[in-house]
């Protein structure tokens, strides 16, 4: 069964990838959807057995690499944490597969798209089922590849290509850190197996190693390196710049990869490595600060974006920030809980916005939408469910996870915890604001689209709507159904050994004992945000424009995403391009080619010309050459053998 979960999507990719054109659109869609749906159903079964039944399993697939002391086997590790991820990954993936059938109906390259989706699903499953760091790295790179391919799926669009390359390069930075972290782990523990490493971690706590004339704490170094990998994949400041651009990909891709699954790989990584992070308080503080900063930063940028998908992208970035600071304060189950609920409502929002885009003839700018809630009422209603779940009003799913995160941040009673709490609270207000802004701008007011577009506006086909209903159900119910298992009284039994929290880490208990105002603050923040949005975009429509005019500097600052892209351009891209051009023109062209291939070729020709010039045609030259040859040979013979004996 576990083999089937992981390898069915691979099988679908291997069939549809090379043979898609021959199979045609219909069979390709059936094969990929079928494989992933079966995989998703089996995942539910696995969740039942492993997580609810408390029976983690380890399935050996093959011996992978054996080289000296380096022995890595390829095994599927299905514990409670993995089971949760399996449900999220395969569930969302199956819904997105089905949704894509409708969404990509007019695209000429459907088989390729479906194959890529299946490839991504396989890679993501490799990542979450990995039994060691190396296998995880394989999945990690695999999802990176699939993400690259899918962002650049419309390869004839320069913006899509640029976004794909940007995503790939920025991820390289993170992956480099992850790779270093794995190497450091192997250096310190002599193994990359999770079990071996985690068992040996307490022995390494507090030890240092010497590097570049400094003494470094072993666990802190490894954890921060691993966290750099997580930052890249999960779009944390300052490695977040690729995520908004990644919206150039088709919307189902954004829902699957850039909202529900791949971007949460970093959260999963830190949770998986909780036995290591627990021994490095410094690394946890770093995680908290970075997460809280991202949550706040992304929310501010989300306030002013006009592209519907970019708003949701920044929202994703911001929510990932929440998950990270939850991890940072030691509440790993809470982070995974938010990951779980977030997957539902964010996929719902993305697919819903895809439905809107589909309805508006591929228009993504909210300034050219409006007034369509009567035309596509189902999408409208479903998106409200997603938005309210995101704003975290009870009893929707987001309320249970996000509230708990903010409470736990307060309950941590540390500097970093307070920092996270206040930034998180501010972000919650903004979250509510931009979510409602999105809803109001998109659906309410007078239609701002052209007459022609409006005449084509229509509700999405069933293949697109049905997945939305499933996700809406999750967005509504996932919170109160699983609250008790994930973070409530049952959490210790539920998670078993898959997440390690030291005995003195009682954050999940402490969050129930915070002052009342803390408990009410997140909901209050949400309501404040909603009212402000209503005031700005329904009641007094002139306010936003006036505000932007009065605070032009601040507005531009936000609109340009705090100038991160410009800053990177200046600091990294331009010097890198300059260096590349110099190495290319001077280093490669002039020096290596000049003295290497070109130079050798030129001197060969030169030598050849001289060699043929020796052939003068005069007999006495030839005879002379022979005599000289004899004399030279005698001399050579005589000297090389050390003379006669």
């Amino acid at each position: 069964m576990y083999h089937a979960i992981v390898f069915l999507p691979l099988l679908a990719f291997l069939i549809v990838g090379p043979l898609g054109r021959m199979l045609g659109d219909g069979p390709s869609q059936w094969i990929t959807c079928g494989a992933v749906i079966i995989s998703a159903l089996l995942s539910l079964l696995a969740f039942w057995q492993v997580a609810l039944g408390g029976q983690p399993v380890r399935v050996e697939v093959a011996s992978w690499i054996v080289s000296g002391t380096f022995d890595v086997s390829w095994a599927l590790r299905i514990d409670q944490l993995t089971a949760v991820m399996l449900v999220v990954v395969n569930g969302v993936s199956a819904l997105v597969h089905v949704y894509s059938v409708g969404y990509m109906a007019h695209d000429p390259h459907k088989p390729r798209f479906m194959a890529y989706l299946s490839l991504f699903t396989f890679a993501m499953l490799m990542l979450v089922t990995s039994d060691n760091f190396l296998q995880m790295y394989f999945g990690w790179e695999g999802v990176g590849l699939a993400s690259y391919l899918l962002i650049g799926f419309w390869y004839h669009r320069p913006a899509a290509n640029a976004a794909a390359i940007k995503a790939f390069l920025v991820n390289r930075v993170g992956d480099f850190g992850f790779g270093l972290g794995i190497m450091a782990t192997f250096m310190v523990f002599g193994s990359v197996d999770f079990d071996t490493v985690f068992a040996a971690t307490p022995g390494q706590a507090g030890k240092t190693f010497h590097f570049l004339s400094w003494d470094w704490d072993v666990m802190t170094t490894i954890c921060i390196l691993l966290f750099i990998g997580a930052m890249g994949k999960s779009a944390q400041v300052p490695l977040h710049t690729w995520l908004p651009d990644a919206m150039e990909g088709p919307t189902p891709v954004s829902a699957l990869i850039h909202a529900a699954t791949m971007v949460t790989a970093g959260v999963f990584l830190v949770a998986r490595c909780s036995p290591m992070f627990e021994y490095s308080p410094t690394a946890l503080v770093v995680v908290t600060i970075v997460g809280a900063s991202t949550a706040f930063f992304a929310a501010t940028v989300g306030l002013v974006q006009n592209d519907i998908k970019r708003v949701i992208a920044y929202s994703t970035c911001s929510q990932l920030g929440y998950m990270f600071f939850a991890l940072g304060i030691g509440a790993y189950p809470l982070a995974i809980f938010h990951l779980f609920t977030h997957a539902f409502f964010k996929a719902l929002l993305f697919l819903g916005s895809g439905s809107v885009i589909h309805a508006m003839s591929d228009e993504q700018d909210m300034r050219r939408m409006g007034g369509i809630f009567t035309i596509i009422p189902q999408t409208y209603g479903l998106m409200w469910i997603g938005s309210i779940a995101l704003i975290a009003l009870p009893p929707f799913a987001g309320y249970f996870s996000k509230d708990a995160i903010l409470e736990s941040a307060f309950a941590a009673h540390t500097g970093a915890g307070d920092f996270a709490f206040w930034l998180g609270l501010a972000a919650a207000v903004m979250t509510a604001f931009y979510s409602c802004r999105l809803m109001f701008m998109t659906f309410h007011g007078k239609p701002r689209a052209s007459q022609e577009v409006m005449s084509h506006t229509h509700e999405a086909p069933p293949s697109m709507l049905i997945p939305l209903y499933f996700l809406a159900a999750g967005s509504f119910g996932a919170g109160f159904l699983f609250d008790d298992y994930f973070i409530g009284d049952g959490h210790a039994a539920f998670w078993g050994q898959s997440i390690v929290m030291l005995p003195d880490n009682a954050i999940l208990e402490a969050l129930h004992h915070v002052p009342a105002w803390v408990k009410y603050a997140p909901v209050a923040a949400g309501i404040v945000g909603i009212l402000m949005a209503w005031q700005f975009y329904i009641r007094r429509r002139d306010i936003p424009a006036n505000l932007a005019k009065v605070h032009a500097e601040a507005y531009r600052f936000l609109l340009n995403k705090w100038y991160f892209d410009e800053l990177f351009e200046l600091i990294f891209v331009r010097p890198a391009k300059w260096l590349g051009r110099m190495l290319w023109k001077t280093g490669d062209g002039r020096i290596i080619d000049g003295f290497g291939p070109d130079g050798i070729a030129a001197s060969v020709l030169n030598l050849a010309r001289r060699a043929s010039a020796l052939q003068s045609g005069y007999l006495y030259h030839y005879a002379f050459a022979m005599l000289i040859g004899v004399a030279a040979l005698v001399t050579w013979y005589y000297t090389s053998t050390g003379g006669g004996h």
Partner: protein
Amino acid sequence: MANPHDYATAAPEIFLALAAMALLMLGVFRGNRSTRSLCWLAVASFAIALLLVFQAPAERSVSFAGMYVADSFTAFVKAMVLIASGAGLIMSMGYIRDEGMARFEYPVLFMLATLGMMMMVSANDLIALYMGIELQSLALYVIAAFQRDSLRSTEAGLKYFVLGALSSGMLLYGCSLIYGFTGATGFDAIAVALKGQEHAGIGLIVGIVFLCAGLAFKVSAVPFHMWTPDVYEGAPTPVTAFFAVAPKIAALALFMRALIVPFLAISADWQQIIIVISIASMLLGAFAAIWQDNIKRLMAYSSIGHVGYALIGLAAGSTEGVRGVLVYLAIYLAMNVGTFACILCMRRKTGMVEGVSDLAGLSKSNPMMALALAIFMFSMAGIPPLGGFFGKFYVFIAAMNAELYALAVIGVLASVVGAFYYLRIIKVMYFDEPGEPFEGPMSVEMRAIIGLCSIVVVFFAFYTAPFVASAEVAAAALVP
């Protein structure tokens, strides 16, 4: 009085000598119109001589007071020489008819030259060696100048003659020095005289160098190669084809015997010379050919390079090395005969053409010939799985096992450079704008030769093992 067994040992040579004289008489009485039939008779004589070579007993037999030897080594080499001579003669027939040089002496001279080569191969004494070389050379000088009306041909013959005389002088001088310092001319007797010595005295050194110089001239190894490009270019094309193969094979066999049998004890000494000659030949063969447009001249440099590779096997001085040389020569035979057969088909209305650029677009006007020539060129460049690769492979293996690493490395590098001009020919044939097509259709015998040679080169990989095994037997007869 030699005993009857002596004559049996030399049966193929005696037959060939008698046949040559008989053909000469026939030619004298019947005149030039009989040339074509004489040619075929000569080819038949080669075939009978080949049979005689094969039916001779495999074990070593020495006769004529130790001057003459026959063993599996000589049988192997003689077979190659006879095949090469026969093929050379068959390829000549159309050409000598078309160029008006179909005189009856032509096949007779071929036979005498071949006889000389066979005597070289069987020589077991410095005197016998000289006799074989001179018989061969004198015949070749005449054939080189056979196109009497052509200035180039006569110049080629004259150059070859003068320089050949110089080399013969060196050879003789070397022989006399060797005799002076060892007191013997027989190879076995010299070996006995040198037994137990590790290094040669200075006099013997000079003698061996002079001997090597004379033999290196015959195989056209650097720096005694200077005649090769001029003679190859000037001589009539079928003569060049003949020059490039049979005499090379015979001279290399003689080179091996004349160094390995008598001077095995001091092999460390003469290896130095062979290594230098080998490296110089490989490098010159690789570099000097790059600028050549005349394909005959190009083939001259190519053959210089090939001799350099073959000498690697001699430098190794082991059974493995000799085996490598024999395999190399066999493949060299097939590649070169095939290539020259193609060159002989480069005929336009205005006459023969010899430029590489004349091959432009051959793949369109004559795809089969282009394919065959491409096969030969790839093989010469040493690209697997063609025969040329295996030839190089076995000599390089021998060099590696003899710990001559530098030599092997230089050999590989030189073959990379050399690949350039072979590939250039293929590029010209397949990618350049077609020129005027050659006069069609090719004669039956040319087609047969080209086809056979291509088959040998392409399918060599399939019968490598038995072939190498028989070369091994032959080599074992030479190196104790």
